[in-house]
């Protein structure tokens, strides 16, 4: 299969370009422009990276909850100076999000790309990869992203701003975010890889951050997208997914009940795409990577659309070629669980 026809290869190239832009982008757009492009980018682009070209929306959200909304609640004064920055952040996020919907996760997020690259290395190292997690485990993990969003992005910063919690919890997600460590390391900085001994709170947060990062380094080799499953950005995207222009559509057929290849191809283990009889199959955990469409063997059953324009439609010929390309990539390693089941 020529690489320009392979959606996964195209996606990897886009991810690579996005990684270069988001990690080293200020080299191209200028040092000071780095924090000015949007300030509300819907993927984990880190402001602590000295060469970044954009900001992750979770940074201003935490700061605005902690520095604006919290003190405003305490003072009982909600002026425009409190409301406007939060609305501006959300509006900027939404404008970008409408354009690409959850594809920000699957196509642009630097941490998502890093985990996929590690996964590819794991495949080449012939580690015994588990392509699909146990469904009970997946169900147990799913609420974690909402907890991460609710506690680390909203509640803790708010509590810190209202004086109920220390400064440590002013931007707790950033404190534990593995993308902060990854992107700053990629930019040649060691200053985000540390244990902070200035207080117990900072020490705990830095230990969690570094442990997370170590876990991701190893787990990504053997399972798909370990951090994405608990990422608060995934939850934030899920809240607004109905307004995005990119859609994932299914034309259910009875053959779907017997197949299930789409669910096995899904890196986020969304088994509902296989069982759902609904047209809209953009589930909260979806990253719009398009693998389900690629690995659907039936014509026109699954489609990824941009508004009303189909981007990729499931097709038996494409499926055959894509499957062959996948096997050629995986080489003579032990067959994966997916292959065994197939």
């Amino acid at each position: 299969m020529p690489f320009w026809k392979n959606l996964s290869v195209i996606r990897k190239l886009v991810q690579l370009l996005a990684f270069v832009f988001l990690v080293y982008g200020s080299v191209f757009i200028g040092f000071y422009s780095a924090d000015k492009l949007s300030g509300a980018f819907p993927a984990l682009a880190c402001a602590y990276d000295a060469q970044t070209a954009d900001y992750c929306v979770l940074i201003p959200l935490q700061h605005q909850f902690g520095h604006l909304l919290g003190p405003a609640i305490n003072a009982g004064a909600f002026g425009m100076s409190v409301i406007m920055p939060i609305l501006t952040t959300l509006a900027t996020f939404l404008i970008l999000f409408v354009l690409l919907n959850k594809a920000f996760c699957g196509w642009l997020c630097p941490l998502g790309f890093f985990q996929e690259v590690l996964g590819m290395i794991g495949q080449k190292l012939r580690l015994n990869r588990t392509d699909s997690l146990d469904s009970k485990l997946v169900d147990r993990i799913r609420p974690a992203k909402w907890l991460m969003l609710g506690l680390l992005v909203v509640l803790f910063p708010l509590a810190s701003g209202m004086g109920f919690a220390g400064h440590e919890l002013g931007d707790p997600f950033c404190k534990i975010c593995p993308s902060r460590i990854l992107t700053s390391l990629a930019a040649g900085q060691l200053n985000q890889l540390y244990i902070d001994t200035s207080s117990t709170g900072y020490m705990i947060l830095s230990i969690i951050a570094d442990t997370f990062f170590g876990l991701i380094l190893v787990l990504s080799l053997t399972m798909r997208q370990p951090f994405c499953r608990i990422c608060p950005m995934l939850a934030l995207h899920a809240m607004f997914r109905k307004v995005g222009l990119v859609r994932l559509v299914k034309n259910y057929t009875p053959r779907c009940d017997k197949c299930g290849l789409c669910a096995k191809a899904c890196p986020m283990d969304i088994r509902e795409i296989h069982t759902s009889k609904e047209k809209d199959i953009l589930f909260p955990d979806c990253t719009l990577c398009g693998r389900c469409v690629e690995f659907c063997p039936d014509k026109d059953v699954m489609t990824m659309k941009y508004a009303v324009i189909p981007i990729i439609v499931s097709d038996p010929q494409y499926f055959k070629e894509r499957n062959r390309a996948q096997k050629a990539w995986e080489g003579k390693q032990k067959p994966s669980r997916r292959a065994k089941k197939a």
Partner: protein
Amino acid sequence: MIRTVIGATLIVALFSFTAQAAMHWSPAPMKHGHGGHDRHAGKPFVLTEGAGAAVTLLTPKLVAKPMSVEQARVVVTSTGMDNYHALVATRSSGDLHESAIRYVYMFGKPSGESPSDIMAYEKSALEIEPSPYAREHWRYLSDTEVVFKVRYKGQSLPLAIVTMTTSNGGSAEFKADEQGVVRFTLPEDFSDIKPGRMANRPGEFILSARYEEGGGTHLTSFSSAYHVNPNHWQSTGLGVAVVAAGMLIGGLVFVCKRRKEKS
């Protein structure tokens, strides 16, 4: 009583420090230790050795607004524009031309301008340009390298001598290269360092340069805050060790999972 002593100490420290330097800007001592989170509040600055100087505030769109100085003090209030502004004091007396420049970040609506423009804009004949200025989430830290460029009438000034003084008593002299670029490490001269960013007050460093041409003398200063390097309470070595521990845990999870699958 304690407040009075702290206030007096601050004023003494400020003036004993400023007495050694050319006309320059420094933040005015605040009534409260913490600046608070009102991002739109005015920011007061003191112009030292600046009697008779004309003061302007240059907006990100490079529009100069005259500022009134009262008892060597100016308050920079919101211009409604986000981004870096330049506080510029200039004074000419006979053949002596002096300037003092400080960059101030003000919040407001996005200016749509790159701070590169205001840094590169000729604010005085002789100027020390930060290259680059420490932007948001970045700050000047002790024991880290900084880079500046010395310009005269918009052109690089090769081999210029730049003098640095700090509010912590540090001083040094540096020579620019052929391109007018001067690199140096900010001194690690804070005493009584406490763990934590919020626990330490920033210091001030002033860079000044002098250039003589055609019988005229030009003096300029650039001033900015610098902070205690967090390396004092952040250990990269420990960080690497914890990442390794995380990898070990990940490895154990993988091994356990594999055994479970086999059994």
